[in-house]
C-alpha cells in the first residue's frame, strides 16, 4: 500500500479507518488494482517515475460524507485530490497533480437534483455526466438542451470547473460562464453556497448569478480552494432550427477581413453557433486557403434573416465563396441524426474515440494525446502570425524529427477567443513521450515570448504554464497563494493544481 508523502503510516492508517467509518469500508480503496484505476491513461509520463499516481481513493456518497472525509484529511494533513467522473483525458484524468494524494472520488454523488424547463436551468452533483443529464432530460420529456463537450462522458461540473466548453450556441458553450451558483465544501469541512444560494430559502439560486457582494465562484475554477458538491447551469431552450453557411477563400490574406466580419457578427450575437476555421495550408492541393463555418440557432424566421445579414457582410469581401447548408429543424429525424455532428445538437457522444482510433483516414493512431492550446488575439493578422510561428519553429522544438505533431487547428468555438491548438500523440513509448514533452515545453516557452499562453493544461505542465503568467513578478500567483493559505492552511486540497501550491510544498 502506498502512503502519501509527508504522512506517517500511523496517521494514514488512522485516517483510512476513520474514512471507512464515514463512507463505508467498501468505498475506501487501497489495493494496488483498485488504485491503479485512477491512473491517467494519457499521461505523458506513463510508466515513468515522474508519473503522478494516487496512493488511495475514497468515494463518498453525500455532501455530509464529503465533509467528514475532508475533516479527517485536514486533521491528519493528508493531501486529497477531488475528481468528479475522472474522465478529464489529456488533462490529467483521474490522477492527482501532487503524486501520492488520496483521490476523493465524487462519482457516487450522481444525482440530477433539478431540471427546470420553465426557467431553463439544472442543478447537478459532481458525478453527473453529460450522458446522465441528457438521459434525465429525455426521460422527463423536457424541451431544453444541454451543451456537451466532445466526448460527452465527462462530468458536467468537472468540465465546467476545468475550463471546458461545448458545441452548441452562445452563451452556453463556455461551461463555466454558463453556470449559476455552487455549493462548496471547504478544507475545514464547512459548506458554502454562492450567489443567491447564500440566502436561506432562496428560490433563485440557479437564476440570478451574482448574489450580493464579491463574487467568489471564480475561486473554484481550475483551482484547489474547495470541493464543489453542487453546481447550477443555464440550459438552452430547444432552438427551432439551425442554419449554417460555409465561407471559403483561395487567398491566404483574406482571413483578415473574414475574421473581422465573423467577430462583428458574433459580437452582435447575429451568429451564435460554434464557428470553425479550417485551412491554413493543411488541406489537399487546390483546396481553399481558409474556410469558416458559420452556424446560427434560433426560430426559423429569425435565423433566416440573420443568415441573410451574415452572408451580405461576408459578400462584401471580394472573391469569397459562400455556400449555405440546409436548414435543420429540431427535433431531428433519425436520418438527420445519422449524418450531423451530434454535439452541435446537444447530444453527447463518443464518436471522437472512434475517429481517433485506427481507421482508413487515420491508419497510424497513437490513441492518446495532449494538446497545447494557446490563446491568440482574435484577428486574422494574429492567426497568420501564429501560422508563421508554427512553421518556423516546428523543427526547433522537435529537434528536426517528424513526431507526427498535428496542428495548428484554429478554434473560434468560444466567443471573443481564438485558440490555436497543437496536438501531440502520446503512447506507451517512453522515449517518444519524452520527445513530445520536450516539444510541448518548447512551444510553451516560445509562445510566452509572444504573449500567447495556454488556457488549460495537463497536470504535468501546469507549473510550467503557470510560470508564464508572470506579470509584475508573479503577482497573480502570489495573490492566489495568499488566498490558498487562508482558505486551506494545511494545504490538503489538490496541492499544485494549476500551479497553486500550499505553503509547505512551495519552492523557495
Amino acid at each position, binding site marked *: 500500500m502506498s502512503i502519501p508523502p509527508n504522512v506517517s503510516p500511523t496517521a494514514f492508517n488512522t485516517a483510512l479507518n476513520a474514512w471507512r467509518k464515514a463512507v463505508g469500508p467498501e468505498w475506501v480503496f487501497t489495493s494496488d488494482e*483498485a488504485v491503479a484505476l485512477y*491512473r491517467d*491513461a494519457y499521461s505523458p509520463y506513463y510508466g515513468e517515475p515522474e508519473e503522478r499516481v494516487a496512493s488511495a481513493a475514497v468515494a463518498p456518497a453525500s455532501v455530509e460524507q464529503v465533509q467528514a472525509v475532508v475533516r479527517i484529511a485536514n486533521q491528519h494533513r493528508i493531501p486529497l485530490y477531488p475528481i468528479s*467522473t475522472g474522465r478529464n483525458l489529456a488533462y490529467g484524468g483521474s490522477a492527482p497533480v501532487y503524486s501520492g494524494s488520496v483521490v476523493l472520488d465524487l462519482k457516487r454523488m450522481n444525482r440530477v437534483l433539478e431540471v427546470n424547463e420553465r426557467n431553463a436551468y439544472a442543478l447537478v452533483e459532481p458525478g453527473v455526466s453529460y450522458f446522465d443529464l*441528457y438521459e434525465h432530460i429525455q426521460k422527463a420529456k423536457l424541451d431544453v438542451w444541454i451543451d456537451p463537450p466532445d466526448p460527452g462522458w465527462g462530468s458536467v461540473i468537472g468540465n465546467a470547473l476545468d475550463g471546458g466548453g461545448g458545441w452548441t450556441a452562445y452563451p452556453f458553450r463556455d461551461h463555466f460562464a454558463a453556470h449559476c451558483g455552487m455549493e462548496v465544501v471547504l478544507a475545514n469541512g464547512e459548506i458554502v453556497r454562492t450567489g443567491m444560494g447564500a440566502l436561506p430559502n432562496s428560490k433563485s439560486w440557479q437564476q440570478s448569478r451574482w448574489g450580493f457582494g464579491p463574487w467568489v465562484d471564480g475561486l473554484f475554477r481550475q483551482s484547489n480552494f474547495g470541493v464543489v458538491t453542487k453546481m447550477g447551469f443555464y440550459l438552452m431552450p430547444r432552438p427551432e432550427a439551425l442554419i449554417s453557411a460555409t465561407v471559403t477563400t483561395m487567398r491566404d490574406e483574406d482571413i483578415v477581413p473574414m475574421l473581422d466580419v465573423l467577430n462583428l457578427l458574433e459580437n452582435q450575437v447575429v451568429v451564435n453557433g460554434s464557428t470553425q476555421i479550417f485551412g491554413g495550408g493543411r488541406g489537399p492541393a487546390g483546396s481553399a486557403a481558409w474556410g469558416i463555418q458559420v452556424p446560427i440557432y434560433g426560430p426559423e424566421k429569425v435565423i433566416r434573416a440573420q443568415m441573410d445579414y451574415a452572408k451580405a457582410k461576408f459578400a462584401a469581401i471580394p472573391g469569397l465563396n459562400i455556400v449555405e447548408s440546409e436548414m435543420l429543424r429540431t427535433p431531428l429525424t433519425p436520418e438527420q441524426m445519422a449524418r450531423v455532428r451530434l454535439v452541435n445538437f446537444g447530444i453527447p457522444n463518443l464518436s471522437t*474515440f472512434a475517429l481517433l*482510433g485506427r481507421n482508413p483516414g487515420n*491508419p497510424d493512431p497513437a*490513441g492518446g494525446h495532449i494538446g497545447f492550446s494557446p490563446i491568440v488575439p482574435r484577428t486574422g493578422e494574429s492567426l497568420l502570425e501564429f501560422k508563421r510561428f508554427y512553421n518556423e519553429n516546428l523543427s526547433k522544438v522537435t529537434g528536426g524529427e517528424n513526431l507526427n505533431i498535428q496542428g495548428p487547428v484554429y478554434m473560434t468555438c468560444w466567443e471573443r477567443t481564438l485558440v490555436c491548438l497543437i496536438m501531440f500523440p502520446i503512447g*506507451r513509448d517512453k522515449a517518444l513521450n519524452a520527445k513530445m514533452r520536450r516539444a510541448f515545453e518548447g512551444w510553451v516557452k516560445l509562445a510566452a515570448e509572444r504573449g500567447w499562453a495556454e488556457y488549460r493544461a495537463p497536470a504535468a505542465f501546469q507549473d510550467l504554464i503557470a510560470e508564464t503568467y508572470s506579470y509584475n513578478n508573479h503577482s497573480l500567483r502570489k495573490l492566489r497563494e495568499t488566498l490558498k493559505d487562508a482558505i486551506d492552511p494545511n494545504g490538503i486540497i489538490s496541492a499544485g493544481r494549476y500551479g497553486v501550491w500550499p505553503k509547505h510544498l512551495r519552492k523557495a
Partner: protein
Amino acid sequence: MTNRREFLQAAAISGLPVIAGTTRITHAAQPDRPPRLDIQTILVDERHTEARNAGARLAGTGATIHAIPDGDITGIWLNQIGPAWRELPTAIAGLTARPALFCLEQLALNFGLRVVFHGEHIVYPDGHIEHSLLRGAENAQLSVRELARARALWPARIADAIASYRPNADRPRPGRSDAALEPTLPRDAQLLTSWIIAAA
C-alpha cells in the same frame, strides 16, 4: 448481414450444430464447474468480417448482436447499454476495435464492472494473424495455440470462448486493461479486440 457461407464456416469450427435463426445452443451441465456467464449483449464492429462472423456464431446462443457502425458505441450506449446498466449492470461482450473497449471499460467502472476477458488479434495484410490473450483465457478455456490452429476461423473460436466463459469468484478483481492506446502496427494491419465486461 452475414452470408450463409460465413455462418456455416463459423459454425464448423467447434462441431456444434448449425441452427438457423435464434434457437438457443445448450451445453451439457458440468456440475463441478461454476456456471457460465450469461451474456445477452454482444457488440461487433460491422466494418470487420471477422467481427461479423463472431456475431453470427454468438447469435446461436440467444444473445442480441449489435453491429456498431464506424467503431462508435454512442448509439448503443445511449439506447441500450447505458439504460440497462442503470437498472442492472450485466455482462456484455464483443469483438471490436480498441476504442470501443476503451470507452465501454471506462463507463463500466461506474457500475462496478471490469474487463474480465481480453484478447487481441492483429490481422496482417498477408493474411496471417497474431493473437494474444491478455486476461481471462483460463476462464474462457482458450489458448493462443487454439486460435492459431483455427486460422481463418478464429472468430468462431472466440465466439465459443465468450459463450463458454466461466467466472471464478476466487480470482483477484482485475484492474484496468490497457485498451487506452493503439499500438503501432504495420501499415494496413488491423487490430481487433475480443472482450467480456462483467462483474468481478
